[in-house]
């Protein structure tokens, strides 16, 4: 899932400063399950902003609504009237949600209420950890299902480095050495020898280095949208 966390309330107040009517928009997918921007959080944020701005002596009308999926335009139609009535939309979606609202409602001014952090999973209640860097060329088959791009601090494709100590990374003893995990897993599967094969330099053009990415599936496209 996409993992995000809320910006401090003080920063949200700055972002909505001067607006008479503010619409807080939550999202029912990733940010709901990481407790950053679902229905409950949208309610708490809008209530908090109403109280905080009233205490500051410049009360703002803050309402909230949550869509099932902020990152697809068709799910945004349901809030069209609320967006039109708002001076500012405070999105509690990930960065994709913020941009989807801005693109779908060109007249609206949209600001982010979250900091989108990473692609990861919950490892215990209240703890999320990064698992994928969306590098565009998945290597998990050669590393036993453990991603060195996302989980090794140096994103080494041939590890571990000299900073691996007792299974931990030199940057922080709380960070597991991804290559130790990879070696342990490959050993447990009897496939340690596979790691003797040197991985060539990765084609980072499939990642961010190649600029903004796009996938086109001709089989799914509709004739009316063809170039």
């Amino acid at each position: 899932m996409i993992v995000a966390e809320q910006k401090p309330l003080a920063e949200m107040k700055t972002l909505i400063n001067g607006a008479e009517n503010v619409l807080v928009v939550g999202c029912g997918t990733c940010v709901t399950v990481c407790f950053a921007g679902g229905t409950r959080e949208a309610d708490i944020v809008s209530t908090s902003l109403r109280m905080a701005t009233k205490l500051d002596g410049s009360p703002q009308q803050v309402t909230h609504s949550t869509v099932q999926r902020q990152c697809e335009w068709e799910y945004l139609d349901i809030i069209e009237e609320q967006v039109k009535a708002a001076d500012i939309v405070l999105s509690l979606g990930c960065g994709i949600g913020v941009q989807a609202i801005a693109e779908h409602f060109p007249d609206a001014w949209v600001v982010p209420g979250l900091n989108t952090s990473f692609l990861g999973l919950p490892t215990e209640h209240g703890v999320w950890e990064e698992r994928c860097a969306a590098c565009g060329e998945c290597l998990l088959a050669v590393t036993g299902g453990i991603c060195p791009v996302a989980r090794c601090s140096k994103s080494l494709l041939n590890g571990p480095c000299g900073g691996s100590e007792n299974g931990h990374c030199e940057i922080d003893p709380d960070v597991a050495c991804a290559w130790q995990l990879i070696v342990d897993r490959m050993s447990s599967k009897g496939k340690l020898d596979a790691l003797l094969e040197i991985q060539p330099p990765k084609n980072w053009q499939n990642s961010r280095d190649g600029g903004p990415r796009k996938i086109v599936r001709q089989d799914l496209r509709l004739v009316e949208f063809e170039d």
Partner: protein
Amino acid sequence: MEGDCHYLEGNLNARRRVEYVQNLLEEIGLDGRRIRMFNISSAMGAQFAGYASELAATIREVGPNPLRDYQAYLAEQQEAVASGMV
């Protein structure tokens, strides 16, 4: 007592949630001292009274909820008492 809860680790979880609400109240500007958690058993009447007095003293120091029109609230309460509704 902390960690010794009828719901096992329930009061340890509750402590973290109370801290969350305290921080939220601080961020809003309502003073986080308005909420506090004490761990006492049902056999600790004297301690209960002591904590209640302590919290009441804190609340007096913090003052009434600034979001509420306190004078209007008092008038409402007096009116309710006068009409026999309370």
